[in-house]
């Protein structure tokens, strides 16, 4: 599909838009919402990439938590500067993911899902029981906040939410660049084929297992980085923040956006954040019905909009074209081509 040239600049414009956003939406409340949105986008991209190789990782929040604990402990116990602890917070979840993958990725989808649930329990149990290191149920408080003093700059993360926003934005942009580059490459084609035609893929010399390992490890690496931003941001981390169902809302976002493209993951996550924002403006009497509304959205999207918002917008465009007489034909074989063989 050829696009007009100006449309290829939309992502760039969007990134610039996000960079200047704090200039006119600088209330801590909105920065807080945007920050959480960016962290969720990082997690959603990970969920999408693991999904693309055929699995649901229900333990995504626990890898996020692992990143949080890593950064907090490295800063508080080993006195690492934040900027050294930050990448480590990605590496450790990735290593745990690789070890877990040795068992889990050899299983079928449902078993993998179950094993990630078990892994989630296992690591939370570690957080809760190893009180000396992880602080048990009370967690770690207060997590020190980073401060940059260089080149005449003094950026104190403790006094403003804006530096966190930019840190999260840069991390999210890097994450998205990595994934978009990945999924637009030939390797991306390979990933999309995993889970559907695995035997055939193996038969062309590709180690499907290695590719799955990479997908899982990379998603957990970025989840860890997101966690590393969350820990000093919220200043208190406890095991209960990284429960199973936090992951479900991420999966829900990916689904609503459209599970057949990484862009859908981003759009769905933004949609969910917008929905939550709308919910806060509704009267408190409706609050009980909100989980129900989410449940209905989930079921209806799965039943009637399997391609999510992204697919819907395509369908709407097709419909408009039909109405205006410019019909777009579904992809089909050209009879003449077939005869020519």
């Amino acid at each position, binding site marked *: *599909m050829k*696009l007009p040239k100006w*449309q*290829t600049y*939309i*992502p760039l414009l*969007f990134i610039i838009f996000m960079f200047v956003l704090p200039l006119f*939406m600088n*209330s*801590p*409340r909105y920065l*807080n*919402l945007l920050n*959480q949105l960016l962290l969720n986008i990082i997690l959603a991209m990970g969920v999408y990439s693991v999904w693309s190789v055929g699995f649901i990782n229900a333990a995504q929040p626990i890898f996020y938590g692992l990143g949080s604990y890593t950064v907090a402990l490295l800063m508080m116990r080993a006195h690492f500067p934040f900027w050294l602890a930050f990448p480590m917070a990605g590496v450790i979840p990735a290593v745990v993911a690789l070890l877990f993958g040795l068992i889990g990725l050899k299983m079928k989808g449902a078993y993998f899902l179950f094993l990630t649930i078990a892994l989630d329990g296992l690591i939370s149990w570690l957080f*809760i029981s190893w009180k000396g290191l992880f602080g*048990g*149920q*009370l*967690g770690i*408080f207060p997590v020190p906040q980073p401060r940059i003093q260089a080149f005449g700059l003094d950026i104190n993360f403790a006094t403003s939410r804006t530096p966190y926003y930019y840190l999260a934005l840069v991390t999210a942009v890097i994450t998205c660049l990595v994934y978009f580059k990945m999924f637009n490459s030939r390797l991306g084609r390979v990933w999309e084929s995993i889970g559907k035609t695995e035997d055939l893929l193996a038969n062309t010399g590709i180690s499907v297992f290695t590719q799955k390992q990479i997908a899982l490890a990379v998603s957990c690496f970025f989840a860890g980085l997101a966690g590393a931003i969350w820990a000093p941001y*919220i*200043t*208190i*981390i*406890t095991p*209960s*923040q990284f429960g199973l169902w*936090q992951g479900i809302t991420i999966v829900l976002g990916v689904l609503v956006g459209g599970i057949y*493209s990484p*862009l859908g993951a981003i*759009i769905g996550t*933004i949609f969910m954040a*917008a929905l*939550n*924002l709308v919910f*806060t*403006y509704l009267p*408190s*009497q409706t*609050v*009980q019905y*909100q*989980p129900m509304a989410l449940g209905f959205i989930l079921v209806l999207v799965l039943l009637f909009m399997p391609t999510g*918002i*992204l697919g819907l*917008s*395509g369908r709407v*465009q097709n419909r408009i074209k039909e109405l205006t007489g410019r019909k777009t034909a579904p992809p089909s074989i050209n009879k003449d081509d077939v005869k020519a063989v």
Partner: protein
Amino acid sequence: MKKGLCSFLILLLAVTLLAGLVTGCSSSTTASKEQVITIGVDTPLTGGAAPWGLSEMHGVTLAADDFNSAGGLTIGDTHYTLKVEALDDAYDTAKATNNINQMAYTDGVKFMFTFQTEGSLALAPTLTNMKILNFTVVNDDRIIAQPADAYTYRTYMGFSVQANDYLAWMKKTYPNDKSIAVLTTNDTNGNVTEASTKAAAAAAGLTYLAPVFYDTGTADFSPFVTKILNEKPDIILTIGDPTGDVGLIAKTLNGMGFKGIHATGIVGAADLLKIAGQAPIEGMLTLNMPLIPGGQVSSAVLGLPAREVAHSGSAWGTAYCCTWDFYSEAGIMFDAMKQAKSVDPTVVKAKIDQSGAKFNYAAINNGIATFGSPASNAIFGANGGHQVTNSWPIDIIKNGKDTIGTIITPK
């Protein structure tokens, strides 16, 4: 695919602008003779902790209604009334921080009630900076260990404050029972309870046996009860456990032949009766306020269940466990406003911090609440002023009904 993105971005921009518009409108209030003060409540209205959150929302709302119908507050020629705005956090850290931020920054709330542990802890410094008075019910004692000028107060007597009196009373009332063991959830709540009981047992001269923790969501308590009975305790404490768990524990203890004392927290005998039946709960100790006429229960809380149903409409038509408790706690804040004759959080805070100040604790006739009592100072030292101590009952269940054993009033 990219076209989808394009139209989506336009939509997003529209939503952003709309959100800005809405907030812009809501912040424009004009000074007049009639002023409405917004009381913000961040609490779990959905999910597993919803029974408590709904109780809190109803309790605070009904207390505000009573404040208004009692004439509100008139300062100079301005008449102030209260309005409650409740937000749901589903007991999730991210949602709680969002809600508290929204109330503080966008809605300009100056008086707040918070529930969620991590959110309350993380935002306590912000609330102090913004001079927003916050009453919280977080069970985690680190909420008290804030700087002395912190604007966050705990209006819930964590078991840390009650334990000494509770255990001392048991020791006095049941002199033959000498050992105590805790059976509680393995979460923040349970761990805090366990630590408090251990200290109080030493003070009361009871033998403290190894505690048993269970996972939240347990439905078969036999293994845990087997474990705790193996230590042969005279008293088993299940304080802080959810109502359903206490009922099942009572049933299981009875089934395994436990003859000692089963003491628990704010749990109604009526609820226990439905779950466990009469025999297992006979003689249990609770900290509940029996909502039956007579005794020392104030008439203010007796009518709460009916009012709650009327207030919430049919969809909410259930009286939850501890509305009376939240009602009384909210009453402390509103009484402080009345006593300070001000709706300025700094002035109200000064009143609360004033040594020897006593506030009305609505649930009990002539009940009082105070901050920085000798009891809370003994536990929290210099920060004791951020912990409330109020009148509270110890009940004994007789014939399936709560009967007040004693009322403990802070000194």
